[in-house]
């Protein structure tokens, strides 16, 4: 190997290895066969999951604790990760849901209050693989690479890469796992309104984020949070003026029982029952309940920079996106009296639905941001106004 020439005059005293010199002790293997070497940080344990990339440059605490990332290994396109300490306010749930992090550079942040990203990973028992050229990896994923992947140590294995590729190929697919059951609240609970109570709502928890709960509660909604398998009658028993179908992880197409419940709730809403606001997974379940189809995107939306057009008003908002699956715009939606209310301006993806009755609305993006902008937070105000009227 070519080395920097050594001369007596400038030879420094032996110092410990600087952080920028990577000693590869871990690898990332994709089911398609590509293997990249990097350095294991956080908890030095293997991980498997679906690789997705996010273009958000900040917000690691929010990302790791967002239940929607369950089952996924998150690739950060921005090369410098962990630059600041993460405070408790940035936690979206009580624990980390992502399976692992793939980064170019994991920074040890300056001293101060809060935890470092690496401390958070270690406590959660998940690894990060550092030293990966995440742009190259992102281009590979964008190019259609299959997304099951494995992170593991290389140890003394000569054929660790091959083995890891095999492990990736034999791992469970993201679609096959019931991620929602793993992240939903096990029992009902009530979140009081922050400030004056203006309405009562039920939130069906498929994997809700703290920021969403806060965004609703600060608007005066008292929230009864129900588990993902709550029935339509369970919902009705709480006597809500508004039903919120929360975001969550996984493929909605496999959630037959929840889809049936949502269909009942929708029928009741159209007939004058409580109105419904669906967000992300909740939006997808509404579409499936209406007979529409969903499909996994070639490249999922993860980040805080996409613009969404609200078709009725012509308003454009930058929003936080986090979805692998999209609702397909087809005749089924029209037949069920749904119209596309929002579209992504980058790729035309359906980003919102509105029922002709005016009693059901849904958005695919995250009006609560976290991480990312909350420019479209009026979605909540509109839903609340409808519920109060």
């Amino acid at each position, binding site marked *: *190997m*070519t*080395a*920097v*020439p*050594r*001369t007596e*005059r*400038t*030879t*420094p005293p032996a*110092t410990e*290895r*600087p*952080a*920028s*010199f990577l000693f590869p002790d871990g690898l990332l293997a994709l089911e398609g066969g590509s293997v990249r070497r990097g350095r294991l940080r956080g908890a030095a344990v293997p991980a498997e999951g679906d690789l997705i*990339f996010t*273009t*958000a*440059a*900040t*917000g690691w*605490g929010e990302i790791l604790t967002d239940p929607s990332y369950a089952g996924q290994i998150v690739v950060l*396109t*921005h090369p410098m990760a962990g*630059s*600041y300490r*993460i*405070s408790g*306010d*940035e936690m979206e749930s009580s624990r980390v849901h992502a399976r692992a992090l793939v980064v*170019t*550079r994991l*920074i040890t*942040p*300056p001293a101060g209050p809060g935890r470092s990203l690496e401390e958070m990973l270690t406590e959660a028992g998940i690894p990060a693989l550092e030293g990966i*050229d*995440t*742009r*190259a990896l*992102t*281009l590979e994923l*964008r190019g259609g690479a299959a997304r099951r992947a494995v992170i593991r140590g290389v140890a003394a294995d000569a054929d660790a890469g091959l083995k890891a590729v095999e492990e990736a190929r034999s791992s469970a697919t993201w679609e096959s796992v019931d991620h929602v059951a793993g992240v939903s609240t096990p029992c009902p609970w009530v979140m009081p309104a922050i400030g004056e109570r203006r309405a009562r709502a039920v939130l069906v928890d498929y994997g809700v984020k703290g920021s969403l709960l806060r965004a609703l509660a600060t608007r005066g909604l008292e929230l009864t949070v129900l588990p993902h398998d709550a029935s339509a009658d369970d919902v009705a028993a709480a006597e809500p003026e508004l039903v919120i179908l929360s975001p969550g992880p996984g493929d909605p197409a496999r959630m037959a029982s929840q889809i049936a419940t949502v269909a009942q709730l929708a029928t009741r809403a159209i007939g004058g029952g409580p109105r419904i606001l669906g967000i992300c997974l909740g939006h997808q379940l509404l579409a499936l309940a209406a007979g529409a189809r969903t499909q996994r995107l070639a*490249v999922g939306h993860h*980040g805080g*920079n996409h*613009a969404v*057009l609200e078709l009725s008003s012509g*308003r*454009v908002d*930058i929003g936080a996106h986090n979805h692998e699956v999209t609702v397909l715009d087809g005749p089924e939606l029209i037949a069920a009296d749904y119209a596309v209310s929002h579209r992504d*301006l*980058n*790729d035309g993806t359906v980003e919102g639905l509105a029922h002709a009755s005016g009693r059901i609305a849904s958005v695919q993006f995250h009006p609560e941001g*976290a*991480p*990312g*902008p909350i*420019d479209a937070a009026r979605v909540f105000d509109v839903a609340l106004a409808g519920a109060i009227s």
Partner: protein
Amino acid sequence: MTAPRRVLVIGSGPIVIGQAAEFDYAGVQACLALRGEGVETVLVNSNPATVMTDPDVGGTVVIGPLTVEHLTAVIEEHRPDALLPTLGGQTGLNLAVALDDAGVLERSGVRVLGTPLAAVRAAEDRGGFRALVTGIGEPVPESAVVETVEDGLRFVEHLGGPVVVRPAFTLGGGGGGFAATLAEARERIAHGLKASPIGQVLVERSLLGWYEIEFEVLRDAADTTIAICGMENLDPMGVHTGDSIVVAPIQTLPDPVVQRLRRCALKIVRVLRLEGGCNVQLAVRPDGDDYRVIEVNPRVSRSSALASKATGYPIARVAALVALGKRLDELPNPATGIGSAAFEPAVDYVVVKLPRWPFDKFPAADRSLGIQMKATGEAMAIDREFGPALLKAIRSVEPRGRGWLWEDPAWGLSHRAQEDLDAFLAPSDTRLWRMVALLRHGWADASALSSITGIAPWFTERLAELVETERGLVGRPLLDAKRAGFGDATVAEIAGVPPVAIRRARVRAGIAPAYRRVDTCAGEFPAETPYFYSSYADEEVAPLANGRSVIVVGSGPIRIGQGIEFDYCSVRAAWAIRAMGLDAVVINNNPETVSTDYDACSRLYFEPLDIESVLDVIDHERALTGEPPHVVLTFGGQTAIDLAKELAYADVPIAGLTAEAIELTEDRERFAGLLDELGIAGPRGQLAATPEELRAAIAEIGLPVIVRPSWVIGGRGIAVLRSDADVASLLATEIGWPLRVDEMVEGIELDVDAICDGVDWCVPGILEQLDAPGVHSGDSVAVLPPQRLSRHVQERAAAVAGRIALALGLRGILNVQMIVSGERVTVIEANPRASRTVPIVAKALGRDVVAAAVRCALGASLAEVGWQPGLAPDAALVAVKAPVGSLWRLPGVDAGLGPEMRSTGEVLGLAPSYPEASALALAAAAAHAPAAESG
């Protein structure tokens, strides 16, 4: 809104500190965008060294004074029905407001496009702005608008803390300042009241030490508002952002804080109802829990140019279309072509901007940095991580010997007491190097640096990390050093080997950078932007090459003596190359410029202009196209020409030029020999290697004499000695021996540009200097064609230039400076490259001089490019150039003229007769004189 028919675009005039090439970039983008929509443009600017003032860009171009009177006349003559005021910097904006105040716009039926002037006034009037911002619940620093010193002092006493004084309606913070004591405050307020054209200053609580964050925001008439880029100043509040190291995207703030600041910026732009681009500056308390709105610039700016280059999102072009009433969501995505322009760029790299200051030319100037901008230019670098981007930015500002390792022995680090580190680390042009030196020698750690300077610990820790890496470099794999960002020259210096040895080792081991695409979306979508940066990372899919490539080496950051004129030349060269069906490849690192717009060329490499990066791009282009690229150095000023020798060592042929020819012109002894051979008179002179030899030479030649070192740029190190006292004071300075001592030839100084195809030559035009020889030609008023010389003498002068070009074996362009006294023509110097006079000649003649020169350099004959041999006939118009300076901004600089160039920019008067042209030029220059600066 009905589309306008003809739009008046106001340029920003000459380059001054605080207003540089960024407005040529903005104006070019705007004009091309408007004309692309079928709208005619009328462009007014007094600065001839701009791309925008070429008719194929600006449409109807009026080169003349930027004054209300002149603009009124232009409006009456050309009858535009609309005005786009937000692209010409503060100058353009102020003129639009003045035209409106004078009733000219209403009288002539000219409506204002984009941001309404009411919004401009609201943003610019500090009292009104403050009320507006607090009205929407956003915090501003406690402040008072005062018109008398007494009122100001009463407020300062009430606050009981340090304050900042900002005069209303001035440029780049002119006349403002920081005051820690009541006495200082009194002085600042009095000064500020004088500097403000409306006699009004804002006295506000100083936020010294808070972090400074900027957002570039775009809004359209439908209220779609997007933040294109958030940027973080490494230097905390107290240093003008133009003098600050700037990093994008924001690195140190948590997402909730970034989002809060972004929301604040968007809210302000919305309440102001701006339609177009806007810069919002915010201060954040280091703990992130509190912030203040500092100011808003309701126009494109230096920061928006930086944001455009940092993200690949062309803010000015989109802002111009928004001004026409287009909606962001209806415009196509400018980078990917699919989707819409309504998105916020995501970047997967780090951008670092370093300012370039004129202190190398003015060692006596006060080098401290504050809220008054002192930098003349800037360089930007892109890499995957902060460290490599910073190291690349250091290489890009061309600090002449000030690489990463530079330390000034005068710092006396080893015997510096801990307690005077405060003064040692006060904001200055060398603070970065001072911090690195302290870290390197273990005299301070990152946290000590941060607590002294207020710089966020994240940054000082990155510096410490780089120092740590530097320390462990020897014996490590070379690839590690390159990945960490260390340049070949730095690695060589650390290892004690010549730089070429590092390159050789890299070539042997196949260690070369990959070129990454700036795509606005962090790889999420396919993009075709031909915009690249190097990184020691995985190879990316190569872009398509259409044919053999021609590399145009740019001129880097703007500095005194190397200004926007070389950007004009580089851009015209790239366009001419593209028109020839070849791939025009540009290497440059100045984010302000047109040449670093990826639309201006086939492929743009945003790189340092040192031998390492230029050779890397050459190798990459060779691999891409399968052929060695042509390399054009003649349009990038001295920066590009300085690469010739090392390129020759690397066996890279230079289009139309040899390193030998450059050597011949720059080694004054050899040049004198060449002139002798050609029978051309040169000044009598000799070389002096010691003070004794200097005295002997002066005794023989007789005073006055002119002394200079070889390899000069902008007259650096040149001095005129008129008396024994001058000789003594020269000898008291640090001199780079040997010096060439020449007689001062009296007469009329000429600037002659010749184009040569190797067989024939032509001279498109001759500039006559109106100041006496000894005044640097860049600082002299000049006229084209010469007014005091017969055509016969002019032809003789042209022939002298032509003969030198032929003798040098040149194809392309040559600049010769000569002095004519009677019939005698004495050659002073020759530069085998485009000079600062090229754009003036081009504007006066209305012909593309650069295209002819670059085509000749690539092998065409003069006949093929449409020029007759010999001195071209006089143009219909007389052109008078006048210099404009901004050295009043630099305390400690003597403003007297001499052989050391002092002006930062220039204006042109074009008219049928000399007196008219002269009057126009003087009026144009007067519009930018210090007193009128802000008007």
